[in-house]
């Protein structure tokens, strides 16, 4: 097998986020660089979504396992903090997968800026009935990256992958 960057990229496309398994780490945009010195040695540079994201260690382990399974002898995972991750790096494909999974995908980061107090992100679409008549229940949800919303039409509460 020829271990080109493209090949590595497709392998990483199979590594999923342990907390939102419908998303791969490529969909999330947390893989910042792939440095492949030869067919056996590779360094993957990743960045955390949130400072306290507890999934990072599991993700690093999963990347290593996936690449070692595929024949790499030496796999190094390096963490970088800059530039800081933003939901704008999430792929369109990732956003569509989230929606199908029942989590409203993040809006453009600009929708978060300059919010007044008690003002919430508007027009978040309910992943069940697609109504935009929804309201924020809590800015903090079941994981660091999510907020809790409720649909005022079908009444279902749902997670929103909040802008970051």
């Amino acid at each position, binding site marked *: 097998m020829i271990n080109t960057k493209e090949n590595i990229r497709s392998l990483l496309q199979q590594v999923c986020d342990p907390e939102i398994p419908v998303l791969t780490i490529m969909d999330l945009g947390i893989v910042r660089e792939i440095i492949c010195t030869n067919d056996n040695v590779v360094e993957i540079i990743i960045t955390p979504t949130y*400072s306290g994201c507890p999934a990072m260690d599991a993700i690093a382990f999963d990347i290593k396992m996936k690449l070692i399974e595929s024949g790499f002898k030496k796999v190094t995972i390096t963490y*970088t*903090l*800059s530039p*800081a*991750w933003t939901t704008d790096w999430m792929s369109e494909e990732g956003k569509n997968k989230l929606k199908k999974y029942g989590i409203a995908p993040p809006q453009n980061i600009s929708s978060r800026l300059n919010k007044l107090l008690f003002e919430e992100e508007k027009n978040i679409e309910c992943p069940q009935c697609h109504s935009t008549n929804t309201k924020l229940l809590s*800015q*903090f949800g*079941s994981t660091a990256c999510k907020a809790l919303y409720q649909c005022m039409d079908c009444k279902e509460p749902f997670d929103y992958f909040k802008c970051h």
Partner: protein
Amino acid sequence: MNTNQPINQSTGSPITLLTNQLINQTLHLADTALILGQRNGEWCAHGPILEQDIAITNITLDLIGQARNFYQYAATLINESENKNETEDSLAYLRNERDFKNLLICELPNGDWAQTILRQFLFSVYQELVLEKLKNSSNEQLAAIAAKSLKETQYHVKWSSEWVIRLGDGTAESRDRMIKAIDTLWMYTGEFFIAANYELTEVHLLKETWLQKVRSIFEEATLTVPENIFMQSGGKSGIHTEHLGFILADMQILQRTYPGAEW
């Protein structure tokens, strides 16, 4: 010659003041985030309602994550300059009370929900200003951690501001509790703006902006900013209240009893 100059134990050469200053600055930021995180974590499963229990513990998770980034950097600096083998864990779990440089307000007991909210608000507004400055630091790693943390802190500021308004301008009971919280906590905000000898940020320059922001939220919450009261300081230089020892006992006992224990 300054006899307090730290020495590299293996080479015997003095550690440059700049490195030492940077290590202490980084530990101050790490300790502050860790101790507040540890305190807020006490709310886990005890919050007034489920959504707010989740909110305060999410904020805790952000703070612990920030602390980890600062400790990892501090460990790198210490190991490079002093030839030691520190890790984020050894710095958090094996240092003594007098070595901790956290702000005093972070170690105070949670009190009721009003007191927890008010502390988060006073602190987050301050932390946002500090991180804004650090983001432009010439030190790349501190700048990177600050830029990352800032995005999280902005959510903390918004959430805690809304709660200060909700409680201050709420019922007679919630307002009364907010006033009591101000009486308890205000005296610990003075040291925010007194620079320790290691601090890279000119924190005294942040005071007016901080006060302006706090005042605007207090006005909306129908609360009053105290004037001319005694201010307690000491945390930045390791002089703590009686509360820190108890937190450390709680937090460190496992690593001190079973060194190196892992999940």
